[in-house]
């Protein structure tokens, strides 16, 4: 595997929310 | 107590939106700027900083109205307010404060996570020049200036550039005493 942030992380977003 | 204030305001007094919408919106802005400036990433960094500055000079009003925070007596307190309250309330993250300078006038914010850069992989030619989340530095510069703190705020490292961590440095240049109301 070539290191990569987007392909190694789960596609489910960690932080669901930010302030409007 | 600052952490309690930040968590409480985030939980009970903050209108929230889906973080993916935020990340995708910011991503489209940065990629558009890269196109507009023909991949001159230093110009993109400056533009993001300027946009952030214009947000920061306003956002401070919202932040102080929301938290009724009194003036910070020194940079140590300021750093705690920024990391435990401001970032919590607006981005639901709490970067840790570290790397204090001996005179306690400069510190770093280390970001274990960064909601702006979800899904992002920098193009090869951007990894050495682009500070993808530079808008954050502009926001802090603008907000701090409104509370009479003239600071330099800049990125030291970013995991997007395959560096160890995402670190923003805040350095106090001077307190703008003449602007402080009598």
């Amino acid at each position: 595997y070539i290191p990569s942030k987007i392909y190694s992380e789960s596609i489910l977003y960690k932080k669901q929310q930010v302030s409007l | 107590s600052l952490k309690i204030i930040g968590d409480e305001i985030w939980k009970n007094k903050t209108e929230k939106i889906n973080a993916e919408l935020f990340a995708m919106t910011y991503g489209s802005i940065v990629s558009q700027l890269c196109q507009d400036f023909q991949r001159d990433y230093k110009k993109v960094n400056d533009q993001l900083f300027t946009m952030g500055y214009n947000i920061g000079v306003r956002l401070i009003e919202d932040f102080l109205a929301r938290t009724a925070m009194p003036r910070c007596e020194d940079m140590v307190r300021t750093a705690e307010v920024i990391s435990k309250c401001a970032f919590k309330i607006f981005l639901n993250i709490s970067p840790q404060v570290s790397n204090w300078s001996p005179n306690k006038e400069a510190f770093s914010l280390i970001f274990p996570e960064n909601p702006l850069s979800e899904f992002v992989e920098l193009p090869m030619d951007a990894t050495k020049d682009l500070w993808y989340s530079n808008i954050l530095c502009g926001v802090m510069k603008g907000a701090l200036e409104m509370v009479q703190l003239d600071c330099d705020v800049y990125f030291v490292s970013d995991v997007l550039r395959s560096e160890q961590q995402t670190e923003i440095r805040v350095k106090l240049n001077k307190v703008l005493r003449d602007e402080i109301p009598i």
Partner: protein
Amino acid sequence: SQYFAIIGKDDNPVYEAEFSGKLGPQGQIQGFPQDLKELNPFILHASLDIIEDLQWQPNLSLQGGAAGSGGSGGFLRSRNNTNASNCYLGKVDHFYGIIITAYLTYSGMKFVMLHGNSVSTTVQIDDNNVKSFYQDVHELYTKTILNPFYNVGDPISSASFDSRVRALARKYLG
């Protein structure tokens, strides 16, 4: 051997890869014979019409499976695709002994693969493994298009994407 390609809306290859077959008797990697290597993109391209027929025909289960029985070789969408995501089309075509499978993303990108490295012997493929390969590549593809610096339809040049697709080929395609 397999020749895998992601085909965009303008029939443009967005990604291509050849997965060599098992080791030959002398221990050499048995890829496609040179003459087939050049032919693969054309064989793959020839099946795009059938894939688009399948892509645009109304949902089979509404018609009780009365799929258009045309098409040579009877390679049609597997009738027993009970799961919701009917992206996997199964065997859609063949060229002599080479079998062509396909998979559609929700935005209409075509994942197409040629199986077998000689026109004489028909290769056997394991539907479940092939489907799992496509589904995992679909997730990698989804992550690719979520990246704001990737313009949809551009060739995927990310080395990490390529290394992960090849790892999936080793995992599912032997």
